[in-house]
């Protein structure tokens, strides 16, 4: 249990640092900065106090915002996916994610992929709607969600496969 808390704190700090110092300066094709800190929500233990989880994610978004001058847009997006994570999990993994024996590593690749992709999609939709903040620019929002989403997804998948290899 203690190890779990410690692991999550380390993960929190490292992901924030990696996000602000590396990925916020990446500028693929001039403007794409993948958001890899979403992996925190992917890795966070499932059977945890939900209120605490939402609170932690609020703090995560807040710390990213503090560094990237984006008002509270990361905060809003991250809190939203934290709230909807259990809904997404029920959708992706079916009812059996509520069982005690459920583990993310036991699920199929397709399920893991869908789970991550849905988290990123919802996050980016909230984020760019807030950033652009006008309904007349729906096409711009869609364009940004798709391009940023693809970049975030690819990088998150790479990271996840990198750090899960020792378990296999």
């Amino acid at each position: 249990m203690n190890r779990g808390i410690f692991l999550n704190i380390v993960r929190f700090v490292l992901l924030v640092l990696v996000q602000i110092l590396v990925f916020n300066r990446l500028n693929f094709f001039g403007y794409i900065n993948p958001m890899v800190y979403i992996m925190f929500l992917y890795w966070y233990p499932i059977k945890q106090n939900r209120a605490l989880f939402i609170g932690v994610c609020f703090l995560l978004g807040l710390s990213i915002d503090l560094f990237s001058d984006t008002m509270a847009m990361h905060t809003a997006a991250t809190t939203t996916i934290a709230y909807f994570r259990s809904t997404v999990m029920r959708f992706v993994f079916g009812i059996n994610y509520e069982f005690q024996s459920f583990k993310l590593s036991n699920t199929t690749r397709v399920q893991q992929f869908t789970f991550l992709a849905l988290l990123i999609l919802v996050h980016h939709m909230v984020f760019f709607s807030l950033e652009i903040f006008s309904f007349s620019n729906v096409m711009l929002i869609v364009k940004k969600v798709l391009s940023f989403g693809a970049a975030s997804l690819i990088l998150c998948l790479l990271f996840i496969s990198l750090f899960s290899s020792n378990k296999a």
Partner: protein
Amino acid sequence: MQQIIKFIIRYKIFLLYILLMIIAFAFTVRSHSYHQSRFFNSSHWISGNIYGTFQGIDTYFDLDDENERLLRENQILRSKLYNQAPIPNITIDTADLKYSIISGQVIKNSYAGSRNYITINRGKRDSIKQDMGVITDLGILGIVENTSRKFATVQSILNTKSNINAKLKNTNHFGSLIWDTENYNTVQLIDIPRLVPLNIGDTIVTGAMSSIFPENIPIGTIKKYDLDTSKSFYRIDVGLFNDMTNIKNVYIINNLDRKEIQELEERTENE
């Protein structure tokens, strides 16, 4: 009463979510309408110090390039100085100065979003205040928005909220400089009347209408121009002199007359 408590217990997660979202929205929406949020900005001491530390490491990798750039700038300034007709007995009276200049370094730069901010390593203790202009050796960069003790955030010209007075060089036709978020090399100059003769390649400089920048600081050159929807004003694409992706050393300009100008303007409006 019991019903209410039951309701709260039942939906406590949802209520927590709504509460946190309201907080986030409040911060976001408030700064949409006015200045950048006081709290969420990278001049904050935590973020400033972390950026400052890593920028310290970063600086070593392009010392050569930066030296070269400074040397080139010195060369230009020196050639200007030596080619000027000598004025006998120059005495600079500090009471007569109009602008004071503070140098600084960028510790965080962004240009990918639609509201970009730059963080510099000068703050209140270096007497940086809100609404001072920031330039580089090549051209303008932005306006100081928030300050902390050691750091300040600068609203970049690549920001949808940015609106700077600019004009065609050697004329007095002025307009507003805005950004349409499309390209980080190009900003837009609007409100230039259609009877003004324009040419591709003409230089755009800052105008005299603002009390933030001195007049005639270079901005960029005309890349393309069109009439806007009203058909009476031009909408000009301006290619920037600055490479906004590669900025290290900056100068912060303090207009010493600004307070007086502002007070006067305020009084005039009130009457």
